[in-house]
Structure formats: C-alpha cells, structure tokens
C-alpha cells in the first residue's frame, strides 16, 4: 500500500526507551521500516537519509490510550486524516479510539474498518475500543468476544458512564471471560446530570450548575467493589480527583485489577480556567480545585496513574460558541499531549523517563498494544523532540481540524521535530 521508506540514520540523539530504561546518546538506524540497530557511533549505510538530532530526545512514538477522532459520524469536528496530522505533530503514532461515534463501535466490522482506516493513512495505528454496551446506550452488553477477536483493545461507552451497578457487574463478569478490560468514565450520572462545572465557589460565582467532585469517587468506589465481586478488570479514564486516586491506590495495593489514566488538563489546569465563561475549558469531567490538581500530580509521581492520555474530544465553533452551560464539553488534546506532559518534568514533578513511560510503554502494555518501545526488530515508530524549544499553544493555530484547546495561550516547551511511523517520516 505504501512504498518502503528509505533507510534513515538518526544521529547523535539522546535515545530514551522507557521500557528498558535505556537512556544514552547515540545513533539509530531504520531499515525497511524496522529499527535495525541503535547505539553509539553507528556507521552510515549507503543511501541512508541522515537526520542530525544533536541536543534532541528520541523516544518511541507516543501511544495515546484515549481519544475521539470524530469519525465516523462527526466529520465536521475531526476526521481520521486531520487527527493523524495533529497526532503526528505531537509524536503520537498509536491511538486507542473511543467507540461512541455514529455508529458506535459495537460491531466487529466497525472495529476492522477503524483499524483499516488508520493503517490506510500510513501515519497512525488505530486501536479501536469496542462499545461496552450496544450503541453505547447503556442497556445491553455488546459482543465482547467477537469484538475482541476483531481487534478491540478494551470496552467502554466513551464519554458516558456505565451507570447501573447491575449492568457494570454483568459487563465486568462477561468481559473477564475474554480477558478484556472495562474502561469506565467514572462519574455517578445522577449527580452529574445537567452539571457544567465542579460544584463549589467557582461554579456558584458563575451561576453554573455544579457537579460535586465526589461523583467521581463514588463511581470509583462502586466499581472497585464490583471488580472484587466479579474478578473483572476496571480501568478508570481521565481520573481528576484526589479522593478517587486514593481509592485506586488502595485497590492496587490490595492486588485488584484496577488501573487508571489521566489527561493533561487535570494536572496542568484547575477550575479557574473556566473564568470568563471560557467554553474551551469546559471538559468532562470538569476541571477541579487546585487541591485535586495537586493530587493528580502526586499520583503521576508515585505511579498510581498508569497512563497519560490526550482525551482528545474535537469540537467545532458551533459546539463551543454557546452560553457555557449549553456548550459541548471536551477539549482538543492530541497536539498538546507531549508538551503539557513535559511541563511536569520541567517543574520537577516527574522524571523524564517516568513521563515518557506514561506516554509510551505503560499504556501500550496496559492495552496490549505492540508499540511504545525502541528495540531492534520493532517497527520504527519514533518521536524526536527538542525538549527545551519554546512555543505557545494557540487555538486556531494547532495542527489538525479541532482547535478547542483548553490550554489556549499557554507557553510550553518541547517541540516535536520528527515523527516516524514504521520508518516513514510523517512529521517534521
């Protein structure tokens, strides 16, 4: 389908492979789309493209374990092609794509179609989530066995919580038979209904209907208990509160199959970002208090959080240029994933390898993806970035279609200068 990419020698990069802890300056040779060799002072093969990567970091192509791409059904927001552009610009080469599209990914043919559409771009591996319930409607569980066989990586209803306890129990029990994980949007629906912001002084001042922060912890507590009851595996998406993280930490200590991710807004922003009714900062879950933000940072540092995801939710102007309570929640997250995560490294909250691990091998292992490593013989999915090069995140100037970034105006450091997908240069 795609021509074999030329051999490439990336020279003088700081090569970081979080899976093995490898961290040394050296060269990396890509041949036939595969990592042929890496290490100090590799020779220059005839005809190879040379990339001078001095002062830059070369890591595995990033693995984003949670994103909505808008396709199928919401192509006015984003398409697989525009999302691939945004993803590659941030060094992302593999994306787990949420199932709550139109139609929902509740049929094996749709799983195959999505994965095929990713492969056809030549820039991106799409690892589809399967729907946890048919149509993501929260009623009947979907065909986990068939979906799994077609390549679904986990099961979720996307932005919607699996609400009734009985349904979650069945989903966990049944998924267990296929070794599959249920990915929950942890938010008690009856407390979240109609809410536009985290309940508290900020929402009160702005006259916005509030969602109490404990709506997250309540769902996490319930589902941990259901995981215990069924022996199933639960992964909590975009965890945003200290209380929920404490519960997850405790469950992990007890050896339960509980994991979680978070997204950059929850460790980089707090609820004050919605001031002046900024609808780009209207997210689900809503931005939290500063204390919760700090708790998320602490949970990144102590390993409680297993992955940092983009939580990309593309929205267009008509979705967002509305009074706050009526605007659609969700933020564009692909293009800013690496830079905002690196801010945690710059602030001293996370080591570089730990930060990159949350973006590469840890999500890959968790979701069973063959990605996120630099090793001889592996596909050359690579991300090269200049860690200290500054830029400013600006809505309107982001790669891809979706511009609804909650980080509009934020200065960051870390520019991706090159992204390779199976040895083919797709960015830079």
């Amino acid at each position, binding site marked *: 389908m795609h021509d074999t990419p030329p051999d490439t020698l990336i020279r003088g990069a700081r090569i970081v492979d979080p899976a093995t802890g490898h961290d040394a300056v050296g060269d990396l040779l890509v041949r036939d789309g595969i990592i042929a060799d890496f290490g100090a002072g590799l020779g220059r093969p005839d005809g190879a493209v040379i990339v001078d990567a001095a002062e830059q970091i070369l890591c595995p192509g990033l693995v984003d374990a949670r994103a909505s791409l808008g396709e199928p059904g919401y192509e006015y927001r984003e398409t697989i092609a525009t999302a691939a552009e945004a993803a590659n610009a941030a060094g992302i080469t593999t994306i787990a794509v949420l199932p709550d599209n139109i139609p929902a990914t509740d049929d094996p043919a749709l799983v195959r179609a999505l994965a095929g559409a990713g492969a056809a771009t030549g820039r991106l591996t799409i690892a589809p989530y399967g729907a946890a319930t048919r149509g993501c409607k929260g009623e009947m569980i979907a065909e986990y066995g068939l979906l799994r066989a077609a390549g679904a990586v986990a099961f979720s209803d996307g932005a919607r919580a699996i609400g009734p306890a009985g349904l979650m129990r069945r989903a966990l029990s049944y998924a267990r038979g296929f070794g599959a994980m249920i990915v929950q949007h942890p938010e008690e629906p009856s407390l979240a209904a109609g809410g536009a912001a985290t309940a508290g002084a900020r929402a009160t001042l702005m006259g916005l209907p509030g969602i109490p922060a404990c709506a997250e912890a309540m769902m996490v507590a319930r589902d941990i208990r259901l995981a215990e009851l069924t022996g199933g595996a639960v992964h909590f998406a975009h965890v945003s509160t200290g209380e929920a993280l404490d519960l997850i930490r405790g469950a992990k200590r007890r050896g339960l199959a509980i994991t979680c991710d978070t997204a950059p807004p929850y460790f980089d922003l707090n609820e004050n970002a919605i001031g002046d009714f900024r609808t780009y900062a209207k997210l689900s879950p809503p931005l939290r208090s500063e204390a919760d933000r700090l708790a998320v940072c602490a949970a990144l540092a102590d390993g409680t959080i297993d992955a940092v995801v983009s939580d990309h939710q593309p929205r267009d102007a008509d979705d967002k240029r509305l*009074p706050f309570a009526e605007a659609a929640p969700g933020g564009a997250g692909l293009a800013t994933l690496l830079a905002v995560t690196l801010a945690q490294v710059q602030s001293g909250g996370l080591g570089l390898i730990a930060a990159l691990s949350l973006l590469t091998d840890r999500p890959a292992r968790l979701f069973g993806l063959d990605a996120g490593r630099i090793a001889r013989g592996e596909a050359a999915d690579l991300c090269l970035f200049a860690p200290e090069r500054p830029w400013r995140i600006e809505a309107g100037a982001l790669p891809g279609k979706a511009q609804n970034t909650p980080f509009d105006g934020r200065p960051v450091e870390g520019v991706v200068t090159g992204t390779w997908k199976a040895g083919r240069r797709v960015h830079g």
Partner: protein
Amino acid sequence: MRLPTRHLLGIEGLHPRDISALLDLAESYVLLNRSGKTRRDVLRGRTLINLFFEDSTRTRTSFELAGKRLGADVINMSVSTSSVSKGETLLDTAATLNAMNCDLLVVRHKASGAPALLAQKVDAAVINAGDGMHEHPTQALLDALTIRRNKGTLAGLTVAICGDIAHSRVARSNLLLLTAMGSRVRVVGPPTLIPAGIDQFGASVFHDMREGLRDADIVMALRLQTERMSAGLIPSAREFFTFYGLDAAKLAVAKPDALVMHPGPMNRGVEIDSQVADDAARSVIREQVEMGVAIRMAVLDVLARTALAHA
C-alpha cells in the same frame, strides 16, 4: 464618571468606588424624576435595544422608561423562548444588532454567561439584565440605593437574604455588592437551596430563619420559582412558607426598624406574607421599583459616556 469596562456584565469586577459613583449619580436622577423633568439630551440620537430572551415586565419597563427619560430611541425585542433554545440564534442576533447600529443593548437570558458571550460579538455596550443564575447587577445597584437612602450607608449593616439562594442571580449580585461595600451578608434558606462555597464570598449561612434574621437591618426575600418544587429541592410550598416564608412572627427578631425588600414579582404566601409585604412602615418594595428607574438611568448614562471615551 466612567466604568473600567465598556459593558456592565456583573457586579464582579466593579470597584467600590465605581459602585458609590453610580449610586451618587442615580441619586441625582431620583430628584430629577420626582421633579417631573427629563434630560433628553443625555442619550439623544442613541439607540437602546431591550433584548429579552426571558419574560420580564418590570425590568424591561424600567429600562425602557430610563432610556426614554434620557432621550434614547428605545426598541423592545422579545424573543420567544421556544425559538432560542439554541445559542446559534444568540450570535445570529448579535450580527443583526450590529447591522442596526445599536448603542446600548440590555440583555436578559436564561443561560449564565449569555450577555458575556454577546458582549464579545456586538459593538454596543451590553448591560446584563439578568443571566441564568449568574448576575443581575442593576437589581443589586437599585437595592443598594434603596438601602443607602433609608439607612444612610451600606457599611456595617446586617443584611439577611432569604430563600432560594442557589438559583438566584439577585442573591449573587447583592452578595458581591454588599460585601464590597462593607455590609455583613447572611444567606438564609434550606440546605438544598444554598449553593456550594457561598461562604467563600463572605456570606454567613443560616438554615433557621429566626437565627438568620436576628438583629438584621435589612431582610430581603427572594422569589421562589415553582420549578424548585417539581425538581424536588423542597417538598411543598406550604412547608417552605412555614419555615422560610417571611412573616411578621419571623420578622419580629430582626431590628425594630429593619426594612423588608423583595426584587419582585412576589409569590404572596410562599416566600413572603402579605401583611409584611404591604406594611408601609417596613416594606420598601415599591421604593425599590422607583430606584430601579433611577439606577438604570445612571447606568445608561455612564455606559454611553464610557463608550464615547473608548471611541
């Protein structure tokens, strides 16, 4: 005087100095109105549009009268609520208004932040005439003017705001204004109608009317929307009236010269008893309406001047 911003979207962001100056200017308009004179030169040639996405009689009329007394051309646009459930219409409306060269735009909308959104898109000075549960700044200003005229000052007074605080833009604007001006504000109501974190804005929270009203200088009752019952936030009107309705017995614990206020329209027998509402010695509810016109004249005057300064 001038305001720091082109628009009046809320009390938040106003300096106590701005509030005092607006009240002083409004005082002069009270005298003018009582003399039966007008000052049609102030807004001559200016267009004021009342854009009401929610039903309102008194606020709209009050702005209309204020605009006309200052010589503006006043147009009322009532947009039926059924056709504006979508925000696109809001911005389409903004484009239409820009084409009409409107100078002053008075907006009421059911969604918090709607006037702020409009203000980004229109050339006119936007005045928030009530947005969702957010703010109703001219109501708070007219309440402050009423209090100041009766008590001589706002500083040091104890003001009890009673009833549905959670859904009230009047309560929010009043809380911000009164605390900025040195009053002590109490909010009184059942816990289901008190919003989270309100104490962080300087309000003391009470769930018992008698405790909340004790030695108060001002008692402000808020309108209780019947939807609150259907939403299950309170069990019934009679239960609410029994515990939170402002009647003579509950008012008796306030200061002997305590004033009774209500932003209107009143639900008699729900949040306020007629005996209290109509007590000429205590109730300043009618005076609030009179002050409303004067305050809105002052706001229109100042915003027109502010717009000139920005131009």
